[in-house]
């Protein structure tokens, strides 16, 4: 009678059975860091171990500040490249590949039943593959580099069942924003979330990743989509490594059960300055916008660009709006070029940026001035996240973002 989280953590800690709130030492299968590998590195040196525990289980990549926006970042990149060589880290993706949460699945690092940790809070994304995936801090990552394990508290689990068929231009993003609006920013604090139900079975892998990605914003420690045929097919396409699918027992214990029906769901919007401040887009219709961002580890995948391209085809974006489009990875970019989406974007007057985090974290590229409003397909709308603390970020789906960019004001796509 165990949940997936309990089963995977029992396996990873060499135990027959674990119970919620028990602290276990779990063996890590994949340990991912981006630019903050530099912070990890400092602590790793301080620990004083000479070699990492397993150079084939560490993944390092650059996505947050690419290409380097400052001399400081250039130095960080350089130091990490040297460390990668020194330690023989096998899986290193330099700045050309894209965002960590897209690169990991694309290069076969997400496998059901495994433990994946990343020094990035949205590491929850990889639960879309039935992986126990969670974000950790830099110092504890240094501990993982040194020992291959870390302490984890076995989480209690929440089950969310989704039913019904989405209306046109309503998507996983609207659903998860709606859920966060209901459960609130701390609604799943420390918990493991399991998404299941007929609607999830129907969903593409990319849409499932939107759910697990944003689960972080209700505090979840990790989130799962129960792996099925679709998952296995996807994973096997990108890796030859053997894996074992772990599913919850039928009589597993959940501390909460929720059910949502998407049949009548309207497009949703998360208003400033918290992700749980969610309303139907219609209630904000007409608000003037200055910048629109389509991209990120939440909504920068091919299906997102396809939706945007469909809506932008033959149209011009509003003259007072800057539309930034950031494919989540080089592969996504390439496929979008082949499908003709990029041509549509350029003709509509959009600016297509290199794959990466872009303005999402406000480090560089496309920052906002005081008083400006940005409509974004990303996952955080915290005060000042994309520039001025006097600016406003609204989170929406790619469809809402695209149609609003044309109109120059917030517009529901239906």
């Amino acid at each position: 009678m165990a949940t997936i989280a309990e089963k995977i953590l029992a396996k990873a800690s060499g135990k027959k059975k674990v119970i919620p709130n028990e602290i276990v030492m779990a063996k890590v299968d994949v340990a991912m860091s981006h630019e903050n590998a530099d912070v990890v590195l400092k602590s790793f040196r301080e620990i004083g171990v000479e070699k990492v525990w397993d150079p084939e289980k560490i993944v390092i990549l650059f996505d947050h500040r690419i290409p380097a926006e400052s001399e400081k970042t250039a130095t960080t990149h350089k130091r990490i490249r040297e460390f990668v060589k020194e330690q023989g880290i096998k899986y290193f993706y330099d700045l050309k590949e894209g965002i960590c949460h897209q690169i990991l699945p694309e290069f076969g690092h997400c496998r059901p039943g495994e433990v994946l940790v990343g020094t990035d809070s949205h590491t929850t994304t990889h639960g879309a593959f039935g992986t126990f995936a969670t974000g950790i801090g830099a110092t504890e990552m240094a501990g993982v580099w040194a020992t291959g394990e870390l302490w984890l508290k076995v989480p209690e689990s929440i089950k969310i069942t989704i039913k019904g068929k989405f209306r046109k231009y309503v998507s996983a993003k609207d659903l998860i924003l709606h859920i966060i609006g209901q459960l609130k920013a701390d609604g799943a604090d420390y918990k493991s979330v399991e998404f299941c139900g007929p609607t999830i079975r129907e969903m593409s892998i990319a849409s499932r990743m939107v759910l697990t990605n944003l689960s972080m914003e209700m505090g979840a420690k990790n989130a799962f989509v129960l792996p099925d045929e679709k998952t296995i097919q996807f994973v096997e396409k990108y890796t030859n490594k053997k894996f074992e699918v772990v599913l919850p027992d039928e009589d597993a214990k959940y501390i909460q059960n929720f059910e949502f029906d998407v049949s009548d769901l309207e497009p949703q919007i998360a208003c400033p300055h918290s992700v749980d401040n969610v309303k139907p887009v219609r209630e904000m219709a007409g608000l003037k916008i200055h910048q629109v961002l389509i991209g990120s580890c939440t909504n920068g995948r091919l299906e997102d660009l396809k939706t945007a391209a469909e809506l932008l085809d033959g149209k011009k974006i509003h003259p007072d709006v800057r539309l930034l489009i950031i494919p989540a990875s080089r592969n996504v970019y390439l496929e979008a070029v082949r499908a003709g989406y990029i041509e549509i974007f350029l003709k509509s007057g959009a600016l297509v940026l290199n794959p990466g985090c872009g303005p999402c974290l406000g480090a560089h590229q496309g920052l906002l001035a005081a008083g400006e409003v940005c409509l974004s397909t990303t996952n955080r709308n915290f005060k000042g996240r994309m520039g001025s603390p006097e600016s406003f970020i609204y989170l929406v789906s790619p469809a809402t973002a695209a149609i609003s960019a044309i109109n120059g004001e917030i517009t529901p796509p239906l």
Partner: protein
Amino acid sequence: MIIGRVYKFGDNVNTDDIYPGRYLSITTDRQEMAKHCFELAYPDFLKTAKEGDIIVAGKNFGCGSSREQAATCLKYFGISAVVAESFARIFYRNAINLGLLVLIAPGITNKIDHNDTLEIDLKKGIIKNMRTNEEIKIIPPPEFILEIVASGGLVPYLRKRLHIENREGNK
């Protein structure tokens, strides 16, 4: 016993508030990180908070990004403890792993005001408000966690566990 003046915050203070994204390119200079605590979201903090202060906060303190700089900047600023109704998990882990004392005390925000002075007795698991003499219970952290904090964080803890305490770490 820890004694300090209170700097008080509300619910859901996120790590972008604690440490703005624009300074994330500072990756190793911890003293430099300390100069940017709450800089954009609560500019008053850098003007009035002092070394030794205790942060008291509401629910979900440290939610959002996993940036360790959010815990590092507070530790190197000299914050002696953070007491909250609840913490977001990555911030909580980061703080422990850096040796910054984080304590959960349900109901604390109603019993303590900005600028009060607190006395924290870890052994007894009690926080006393020196102005009102009211006592507030702490939820005792698991022993394993206290061990890491008592070692001064995960790095010294692991050095001990891996028996490298005598070898010079490459700092």
